């Protein structure tokens, strides 16, 4: 009951946030908030797989396929991103299945799965760079701006509040998907698969079907997050949307926050982005790399001492404290 009230209050606060007077800070705060929502959504999509031992180190591939598909369709064929999104998500799902099917068929799990997905992420990044004639290579590509009044068609907007609400809704949908899956039979099946595939199969769990489904879902959501990010920034770059760098960044934020709990990815992402912004604003160019240095170190410490992440550990601590209470009452 209390939890529900807190959630409602937080949600109300988030909805009202763009109208709170912040002076000149408003644009900046909104910008940071939008980034947190989008990357939390992407992190949540990753954790759908990650929490079941399907640790992908190549989710950048899906971001890249998603963002570049809509961008190229819009820039070269004028196809509105509203429709391009469907093509892009479909493309990401196809890629996910092409990789996941043989992985499941030939029993590629654990760190081998990580290495294969890492290679996939790199292949997508390198292909984007190699096709520089139309993707712009490592220089990236700017989305064509819409003409006057065409903002809706181009799914672009200079008003950050529009993207704020869009990102907020998408983030909530991501949380809903996470919780929905968490309460379904699929979760039990996936946990069994994560523990021991052979044992799961022996009690009648359709291993391949569950793995492919969860991978496809995760890839689709990730691609969607990539598209949203590209539409917001109106610029795509192979380094920020594909390859090892961004793939690991997603993984780290989620692990930091806790990949086994629904708010974990959000907590981790919010923390890493806030820390990065804080150091950037406070120290400017003097401390380039300091934010990553700190959270690289934090990550090592967390994996060793608190593998459930910040949010997961705090929740476990609270739960432990709450247990004796009914006994005395």
């Amino acid at each position, binding site marked *: 009951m209390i939890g529900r009230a807190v959630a409602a209050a937080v949600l109300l606060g988030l909805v009202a946030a763009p109208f709170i007077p912040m002076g000149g800070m408003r644009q900046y705060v909104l910008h940071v908030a939008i980034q947190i929502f989008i990357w939390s959504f992407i992190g949540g999509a990753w954790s759908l797989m990650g929490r079941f031992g399907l640790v992908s180190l190549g989710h950048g591939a899906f971001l890249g396929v998603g963002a570049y598909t809509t961008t190229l369709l819009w820039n070269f064929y004028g196809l509105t991103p509203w429709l391009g999104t469907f093509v892009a998500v479909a493309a990401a799902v196809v890629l996910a299945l092409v990789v996941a099917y043989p992985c499941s*068929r030939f029993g590629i799990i654990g760190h081998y799965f990580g290495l294969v997905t890492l*290679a996939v992420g790199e292949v997508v990044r390198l292909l984007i760079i190699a096709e520089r004639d139309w993707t712009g290579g490592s220089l990236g590509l700017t989305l064509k701006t819409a003409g006057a009044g065409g903002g809706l068609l181009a799914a672009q907007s200079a008003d950050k509040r529009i993207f704020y609400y869009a990102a907020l809704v998408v983030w909530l949908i991501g949380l809903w998907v996470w919780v929905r899956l968490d309460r379904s039979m699929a979760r039990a099946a996936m946990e069994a698969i994560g523990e021991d595939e052979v044992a799961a199969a022996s009690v009648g769990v359709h291993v391949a079907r569950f793995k492919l489904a969860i991978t496809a879902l995760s890839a689709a959501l990730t691609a969607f997050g990539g598209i949203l990010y590209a539409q917001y920034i109106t610029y795509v770059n192979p380094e920020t949307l594909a390859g090892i760098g961004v793939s690991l960044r997603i993984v780290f934020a989620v692990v930091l926050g806790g990949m086994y709990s629904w708010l974990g990815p959000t907590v981790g992402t919010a923390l890493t982005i806030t820390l990065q912004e804080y150091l950037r604003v406070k120290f400017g160019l003097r401390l380039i790399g300091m934010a990553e240095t700190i959270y690289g170190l934090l990550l090592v410490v967390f994996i060793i001492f608190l593998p459930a992440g910040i949010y997961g550990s705090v929740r476990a601590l609270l739960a432990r404290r709450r247990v004796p209470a009914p006994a005395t009452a």
Partner: protein
Amino acid sequence: MIDPLFLLEAAINGVLLGGVLALLALGLNLIFGVLDVVWIAYVDLVMVCMYLVYFLVMIYGWPVWIAGLAGIGLGVALGLAVHVLIITPILNSPPVNQLLATGGLLFFIQSFATFLWTTDHRSIRINLPVVEVGGLFLSFARLIAFALSIVAMLGLWVFLRRTFIGTAIRAVAQDRGAMALMGADPQRVYLVTSAVGGAMAGLAAALLSIQYSVHPYFGAAFGPITFMVCVLGGLGNMLGAFIASFVMSEIISLGGVLWSTEMGYVIAFALFIVMMFIRPGGILARRER
């Protein structure tokens, strides 16, 4: 039409790159095969040693070979530190945690290097002659690196096959539990292996620093390919990794000339993915089951 001589030169450069990859892979293969832990940050350790060699030579004016020895020493220290500080506490947790913890180390090293030394590319400027063989121009630095890496490989092979501790390492590689049952101490074997693996990283750093410039993203550039070489060759299989290095480097080198550098890597990575599916035990493995 591409000049055949041009292709031949690319092929030879591929062989020399292969020597480097083989050297990088050898140390990692030892760690990966024996400890059964993924040191995702392995090539970043190499990078740290390269910085040491660079600074000793360019700032303090040490001769390259002594700086190289210092690099090997640092490699040993780093290897031991990684094992004691990061791997030992999580040796018995799920392997994915080990991957993530060393991933954190990778991030830490890469960003800290950016912070300390900026993203400048630094290379040791020593004048090594270019050798001309029948119209082909070969970098002398690469020839030295190649020769030394083969010597190191043979040395490692002798160490693993002919010494007592080498035999112990192979025993742990086969069965960690049984090793302890025989009354041997696996922790000591782990430490020795980490130290030797670290020394290999230092040696690779010494040899690489005379032909590549060092920058914080060096690990990102060579890390994935090194891992792929190890897996492709079959984990713990030294000969397999050796052959895989040359297969990968030739694809990268020839693909780079025939198409573009990126496409060379794309083909090599795609080959890795496909090989994982059809031959998960490595190129030399006999198909089991």
